[in-house]
């Protein structure tokens, strides 16, 4: 068994660079010239803000709040503090880059896809995530991921943003 992964094993700025260049390659391979980008609140939106700049995407960045589409709504209730979804473009026939911070069970992405299709019919949706960890519960996979990591069940990875707007990943452990 290898050693458990720690927070300082993850170089977040380098991962953002990796994600950005892999995404650029993917768009080139698929001949997509004018994509739109949508970030999932809250961590996914932070990553999307960085990628949106790095890739010089023309259309404004979209933000998705999947609260109204969650499959566990009746278990967790309403959270009024999160900002609502805002897609400032028509999504019909667009190539969409959906961005999240961590791909884990796949349930968030299921909810996000449902919400996107309530706005229209995109030409395609691809998924870009900063971190891919195991434990998928749905047939969802990322088109690009800056890194794949293996975490124990009681380890949680989280994206944070400090006062200087710098992003950094941290790994926390809960008691077994």
């Amino acid at each position, binding site marked *: 068994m290898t050693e458990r992964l720690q927070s300082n094993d993850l170089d977040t700025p380098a991962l953002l660079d990796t994600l950005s260049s892999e995404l650029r390659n993917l768009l080139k391979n698929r001949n997509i010239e004018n994509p739109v980008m949508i970030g999932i609140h809250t961590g996914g939106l932070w990553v999307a803000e960085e990628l949106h700049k790095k890739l010089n995407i023309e259309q404004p960045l979209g933000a998705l709040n999947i609260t109204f589409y969650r499959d566990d*709504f009746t*278990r967790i*209730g*309403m959270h*009024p503090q999160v*900002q609502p979804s*805002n897609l400032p473009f028509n999504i019909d026939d667009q190539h969409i880059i959906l961005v999240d911070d961590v791909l884990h069970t796949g349930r968030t992405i299921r909810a996000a896809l449902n919400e996107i299709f309530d*706005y229209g019919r995109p030409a395609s949706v691809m998924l870009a995530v900063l971190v891919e960890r195991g434990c998928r519960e749905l047939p969802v996979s990322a088109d690009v991921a800056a890194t794949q990591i293996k975490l124990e069940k009681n380890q949680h990875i989280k994206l944070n943003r400090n006062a200087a707007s710098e992003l950094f990943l941290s790994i926390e452990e809960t008691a077994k």
Partner: protein
Amino acid sequence: MKRFDIQLDNDNQLRHFLTIEGLKKQMLLDILDNAENFSSVSSRQIKKVPLLRGKTIANLFFEASTRTRTTFELAAKRLSADVVNININTSATKKGESLLDMLHNLEAMQVDMFVVRHHSSGAAHFIAQHVAPHISVINAGDGSHAHPTQAMLDMFTIRRHKQDFTKLSVAIVGDIMHSRVARSQIHALNTLGVPEIRVIGPQTIIPNEAAHLGVHVYHDMQQGLQNVDVVIMLRLQRERMEGALLPSENEYFHMFGLTEEKLKLAKPDAIVMHPGPINRGVEIESSVADGPQSVILEQVTHGISIRMAVMSMALGRPSLTEGGQS
């Protein structure tokens, strides 16, 4: 059990929404913030989210209503709930046992929420006391007692235009005595920290206890409207009046109707509100109701968002799925 605890479950989450009275400021702010999020749904091409899929909501209207019933129905449908509208002809309805029998029949059809409008004050409370533990009751107006979703949509409209409640002066004009809307508005404005609440109207239709509600009473429009930020006009409710409380409608309009002239006494950026339906030329001049300071139709739009917020808060409580019921 204390009377107002009936609205909350064991986790202090909103289970029934019967009155503003007794609810904490944070609860009202949560309703407003949730409604803010829901307002974006109504501007989408597909005005629907799957939040309450599989829930059934029964609208029980024992009293006529167009706006309230329609916006409750649209709110439920935009949350993907199934809605049944039951219009009860008041003359055919018997009181007491027959009402409870009807409720139990609806419960047997696995209804999750009752939205109740009734001509008797306390009707929604009565129903809330008798429903099965998993069912929520929303008061859509009971007699002259309370109309909490109307008050919250009014607070929502005020916040959209004026942001900070703690700097406002708000005037409510007209038939305070018979108005469940005014009662709920006063509780909400007080809870949200509005420092100056005025009620304006003829002595005969301002209840004696008004002064105890933390409001200033005026019997003269010229004085009462001075420098207010918000003017809320109320409908003259002839159907609830017994005996001769008022002079002619003409004379009422002359003294308490809102005209462009009288509106100039308020702040230049004051907004004009009315819960509807409006009686043009009785409590409000047409040019004011349709004028640039009027937000009357915005209120209607916001009613959908507020009702979506309240319905999802009541039906999305974690305790419902854990089986831990209040």
